[in-house]
């Protein structure tokens, strides 16, 4: 128990320190990009949100396999919480992206492959969260969610490679020829923001797992009280 509380405190402290540093780096340290100017700075949160959302769904993928193999409900609990955070971050990608797109492309949305596949990813994992409401059997729901979590993850590499496989207007981060010019200071800022969001993800996951575990404990207690009355 003590180790858990210490880890929580360390994570919270690290996150509380990292967030203002990331804002300093974004607004004061990183230079203005040549073509997009001020709007390019959305990239420093938009890209980490996307990458950590992929991480969250990868965690779900791994835990779903573990659940199917071991049938241990704890993997379902953690996977469910990881989906909640992944959906939150994916939703934020779909909000920050259009806010950037409006002044740059002149439109809020386009049916570009990267945007469309990300929207599909978001909707699939929202679907995952709804599975519990379709069955009262915990074991059955966990199994369905595990299979869904494995299949839905197939969209993540599709989102990632969509800008290489299809014609797209979405900027590429890594390709210096056709993408954005990234200076060393921009790289440092981006990497630090990725670290910040990784810490936020870890902290949110621990909080969410605690809530879901307490929820399950309450359910089991209610069930056992119900059985005693019968």
């Amino acid at each position, binding site marked *: 128990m003590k180790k858990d509380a210490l880890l929580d405190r360390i994570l919270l402290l690290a996150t509380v320190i990292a967030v203002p540093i990331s804002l300093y780096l974004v607004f004061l340290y990183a230079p203005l990009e040549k073509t997009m100017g*001020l709007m390019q700075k959305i990239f420093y949160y938009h890209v980490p949100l996307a990458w950590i959302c992929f991480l969250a769904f990868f965690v779900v993928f791994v835990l779903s396999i573990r659940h199917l193999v071991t049938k241990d409900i704890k993997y379902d609990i953690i996977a469910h919480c990881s989906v909640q955070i992944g959906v*939150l971050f994916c939703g934020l990608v779909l909000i920050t992206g259009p806010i*950037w797109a409006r*002044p740059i492309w002149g439109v809020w949305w386009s049916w570009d492959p990267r945007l469309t596949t990300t929207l599909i990813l978001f909707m699939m994992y929202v679907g995952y969260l709804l599975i519990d409401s379709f069955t009262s059997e915990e074991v059955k729901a966990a199994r369905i969610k595990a299979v869904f979590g494995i299949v839905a993850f197939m969209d993540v590499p599709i989102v990632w490679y969509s800008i290489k496989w299809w014609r797209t207007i979405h900027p590429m981060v890594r390709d210096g020829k056709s993408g954005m010019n990234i200076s060393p200071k921009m790289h440092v800022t981006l990497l630090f923001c990725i670290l910040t969001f990784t810490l936020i993800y870890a902290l949110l996951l621990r909080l969410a797992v605690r809530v879901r575990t*307490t929820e399950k404990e309450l359910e089991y*207690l209610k069930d056992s009280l119900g059985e005693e009355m019968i």
Partner: protein
Amino acid sequence: MKSDLLKNFWYLVSAYSAVFVAIGAFVFTLFQKQDQLERELDALKKSKS
């Protein structure tokens, strides 16, 4: 030119605010739910004993 810069500044502020508001709301909901669940659990444990 100045109005474009101001417009872009507000777009930027909206994007960052959305991130903080959404994550903040999620954390707040988690804490609220945890409080509520712990109260229910305590009440049930007391009634069981």
